[in-house]
Structures are given as C-alpha cells and as structure tokens.
C-alpha cells in the first residue's frame, strides 16, 4: 500500500482503487453493513428510515413539479391546474408530493413519539434529539411555504395569518412582517421568495439529517429496553437484520401512501384551496393543514395575541430542553409505572389539540383547547422534573440479551447469550 492511501478490504479492483483513495465503500460497510445495532428493536425503529425515504420522495417529486410550476400570483394557480390536467403524470407527481407532506408528518410524529416513549432524548443522545427538533422545525417551515405555492384561498390566508404571527413581536414586529412580505400584504414578492425557500430548505434538511445520523452513529441507537448494549451478545449487524426489518416497514408505509394518493388524494386537503386566492375575501373558516392543528389550537387558546404566539413557539422550544427536564435516569417507559400514564395522557392531549384546532375558535372548543394546552406544558415543565425524584422505577434487566420478560420467564433456548459472529 502506498503511503497516504486507505488500506481497503475490498477485493474488486475498481472498488478497491476508489476505496483506497476515498474510503466511501469502507464507510458504508461500517455504518450500514456491520454497524452494531441493539438486537431488540421493535417496529417503532422503522420510522427513521421511513422519514429518510419520505424526504427523498419529496425532493424527487418536488424537482419535477418545479419544472412545470410558475411562481407568479397571476399564473401560479393555473400552472398547478395545468400540472393536474395537461402535464403527463402531473396529477401523480402533485398528489404524491401533497400527500407525501402528510405522510412525512405522520412518520415524523410517530418517530418523535418513539423518542418520547423510550427516552431516546436522554444522555448521551441529547444533541441527536435536538438536531431532530431542528429538522422538525425546518419541515414545518418547508411545508408551510409549499402550501402557499398553489395560491388558492387557503394558501393566501394561511400565509397571511402565519406571517402576521410575527407582528406580535413588540416594536419591530410590523417592520419584520413587511420585510417577510416584501410589500404591504402577501403578494407576488412573497410568493416568489416562498418558492425560492421552499426549494432550498429540503436540502438544508438533508444536511441536518446527515448530522442527525452522524450523531446517531456515535452514540448508537437506543432500544425498547432503554439500556445500553453491554457487549457483542446484545447487538446484531445492521445488515441484513435491520435492512430487512426496515424493508417490511417500507412496504406497509407504501401501502398507506398509495391508498391516500390513489383513493383519497384530497382527503387531507381543504376544498377552499381549489378557489384562487382573493386578497379581499377571507374564507369563513381558516384552518391550517392537519399537522399544524395542535399548535394552531395552542395559539387560539390564549386570549392575548403576543401570549398566544409565544406559547405556540414555546410548545416546540420546550422539546429542545426536554433532555434536562426529564430528571429520571431510566429511559424506557416500560420501567416507569407512573410516567408512562402521564405520557399517554400527554399524547391524548396532543390529539385533542389537533381536533380542537380544526374547530371554530369559540365556546367549549376553546375551553377544551385551554385544558389540553395546560396539560401539554404541565407534563414537560412540572410532571417530568418531579417524577424523576418521586417515581420508583421497575428494576431494569441485566442486559438486552437477558431481558426481564413479563412473568420473568426464560428466553427461548439458544437465544440468550449467544455471541453474534460479526458485530
């Protein structure tokens, strides 16, 4: 081996020649081939890979849609209709892209729930978790701006309401809103910059996803027991064990995706967005896309404008400090007899907020949203910090290979403590 070249294990001379100079094959083999992974993943661990696939689907369909879309207030709506009617398979590209956004949020919400339930945000994975929250925020910005592009009524009024959130900032708020708009209302300059940013941000997401995965491959994956692997008997190589398990999940995911695209493509959309934008008439009932409804409900639950905006942003910001709010050293909710019920209730509150956000902002809906908002924050800011001290967790299993099964029964013969050959 010449000095300065990587000592490659690959036999194929072409692969070996490249790998010696740029060890990408060695890296892939290390990170996705032999990468030691806890042996006890359940199907919740599919959702990271599913999110990655979803991101690639969104970028692919988006690039091709951009070849037919016109970002101008007088032409945007018609260009989208042209995509639907005249462009070859334009309907398919657009329905995959639009429903892909919904699928992305479904997948990511389950991915986040997995993190909450199994304590994946705890040391040493705090930064990994925070990068995930950054990805989530970027996704929300990207989805919001994408929804504006068809320039229908919901596009226009959604953009108006959301950009007006910044007018709640004291003193400089109105100037910031004018700057965001590039004018004195949501208009052509706004549409143009949203298009530019909607194209840019997915690639920023790719960058942060890379960091997210890089951080994951330093700490290694969490697992349903929430305990660290203690040796090779606790792990299996990523390939073929989890490539195949992820593939099973991908098939199920694509079935759901296909049902949405081919049988109910407008189910998650809003009919008002098939009316061209009219700056002089606000639709009677403005609602954001379903995945924003919980935050919209929090916004409307507060009777004060600035307070509502602050609380809405705080509902995401609190996730950044979650690793330090949860004071319990036990990761998995399986071993936290109290915390798990509080978390289930939090999950119910999240769904209640999602439901309330789609209802008119009046009467009992607001009252219900207030209760759910209160508990949303109570869980993070009071219950989790206190439970770390008050709760008595169940005893943790010795190792992943020897878990404490329900009823304490033994593992099937031969399954335990067999060191894996590769890992």
């Amino acid at each position: 081996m010449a000095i300065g070249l990587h000592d490659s294990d690959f036999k194929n001379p072409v692969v070996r020649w490249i790998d010696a100079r740029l060890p990408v094959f060695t890296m892939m083999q290390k990170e996705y081939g032999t990468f030691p992974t806890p042996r006890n993943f359940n199907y919740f661990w599919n959702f990271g890979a599913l999110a990655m696939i979803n991101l690639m689907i969104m970028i692919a369909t988006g690039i091709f849609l951009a070849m037919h879309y016109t970002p101008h207030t007088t032409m945007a709506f018609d260009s989208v209709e042209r995509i639907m009617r005249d462009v070859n398979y334009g309907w398919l590209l657009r329905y995959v892209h639009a429903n892909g956004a919904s699928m992305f949020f479904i997948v990511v919400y389950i991915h986040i729930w997995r993190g909450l339930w199994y304590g994946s945000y705890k040391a040493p994975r705090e930064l990994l978790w925070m990068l995930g929250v950054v990805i989530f925020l970027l996704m929300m910005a990207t989805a919001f701006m994408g929804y504006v592009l068809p320039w229908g009524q919901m596009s226009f009024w959604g953009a108006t309401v959301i950009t007006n959130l910044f007018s709640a900032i004291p003193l400089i708020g109105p100037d910031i809103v004018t700057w965001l708009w590039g004018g004195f209302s949501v208009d052509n300059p706004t549409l143009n910059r949203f298009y530019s940013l909607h194209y840019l941000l997915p690639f920023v997401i790719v960058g942060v996803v890379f960091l997210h995965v890089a951080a994951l491959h330093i700490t290694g994956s969490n697992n349903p027991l929430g305990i660290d692997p203690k040796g090779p008997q606790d792990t299996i190589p990523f390939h073929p064990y989890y490539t195949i398990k992820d593939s099973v999940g991908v098939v199920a995911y694509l079935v759901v995706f296909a049902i949405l695209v081919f049988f109910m493509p407008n189910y998650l959309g809003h009919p008002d967005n098939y009316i061209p934008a009219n700056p002089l008439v606000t639709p009677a009932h403005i609602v954001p896309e379903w995945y924003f409804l919980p935050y919209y409900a929090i916004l409307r639950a507060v009777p004060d404008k600035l307070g509502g905006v602050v609380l809405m942003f705080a509902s995401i910001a609190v996730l950044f400090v979650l690793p330090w709010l949860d004071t319990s050293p036990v990761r998995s909710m399986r071993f936290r007899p109290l915390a798990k019920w509080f978390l289930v209730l939090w999950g119910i509150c999240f769904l209640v907020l999602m439901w309330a956000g789609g209802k008119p902002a009046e009467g009992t809906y607001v009252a219900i949203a207030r209760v759910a908002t209160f508990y949303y924050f109570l869980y993070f800011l009071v219950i989790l910090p206190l439970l770390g001290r008050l709760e008595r967790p169940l005893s943790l299993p010795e190792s992943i290979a020897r878990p404490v099964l329900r009823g304490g029964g033994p593992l099937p013969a031969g399954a335990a403590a067999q060191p894996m050959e590769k890992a």
Partner: protein
Amino acid sequence: MADTMAQQRGAQHGATSPGDDGEPRRDFLKLVAGSFAAVGVGAMAWPFIASMNPARDVLALSTTEVDLSPIAVGSAVTVVWRGKPVFVRNRTAEEVQAARAAPLSQLPDPQADQARVMRDPWLIVVGICTHLGCVPLGQKPTDPRGDYGGWFCPCHGSHYDTSGRIRKGPAPANLVVPEYAFTSDTQIRIG
C-alpha cells in the same frame, strides 16, 4: 504555564518590550481583526437582507383615489391600497352617535371617534383585522357585523364597532386609520 507560552509567542514575534508578556497587544489585535470581520460580514449581508424589503415599484403604488359620491348613507365600499383592502363607510347618524356614546374606559384600545375621522359620516380604515390579518365581515348589508354594529372577523372572533375600534375578541388594537386627505368634498386620496 500559560504565561510561559505567551512569553514564548511574544518573543518569537519580537513584539514584547521587557517585562511585557505581549498579551494586551495580541488581545487588541484579535479584537480589532474580529471587529473588522464582523462589520465586513454585516456590510455584505445587508444587501441580501434589504433586497427582501419592498421594492421601488411596490412603494410607488402607495396612493389610491376614491370617489365618495356614489356611496349612499349607511353603505360602504372596499378599495385596494397597497394590496390591502380599505373600508370606506358612509355612516348613518345613529352609527356615529353609537360610536361617540361608547365610554372610552370600556375600550381595549381607547381612542375617541373624533380622533379617527376627518368628516363625521366618513370612516376610512384598513380592512385588516389587527389580530392575524384576516378581512373582517360587515361591508355588505347581508354580512354579520358583530355585537357592536361595525365589523366581525370570522377567523378568531373579533368584534369592531362603528368607529372600527376593537370591542371584543383577541385583536389587540383598533382597525388602522390610513393616512388620507380630502382632495374635494367627494374625493379622497389614501396614502
């Protein structure tokens, strides 16, 4: 340890006078270089940031003329100014009366009706809810006008009175009165 290293570095650059360890001079250079870099980055960033502010053609469209003669008492029109709807309402005597009768102490954003109009019947306000920017209902005779006979915002339920002042709901401020002038008895220029 740190002192020794600093002395060595200082000695290498020949920058120290006897008894001076070179650190204050180095700190100063770092501070000046860093400040220049920061100012430079800011100066380069500014054109990018400023390019997102309203362009000259957008600013040029900043006045709108309205002929008031066809607007009957009790009715209203919506005109567009800077891409925003502006409500021009020819109020009835009762509506003016109702606006003036409201005690200021009961208003979330206290402002007398007299301070919001130039000539009694004519109320001119930007038709954008001060909450989150929806267009309130109440321009057409068939629209709901809220509990105070002015406008009602359907998005989040703000009620405005016949002077365009917020009376109930989440909006923090009254409907904005744009800058305008009567160019004749039946003509105004907004902006």
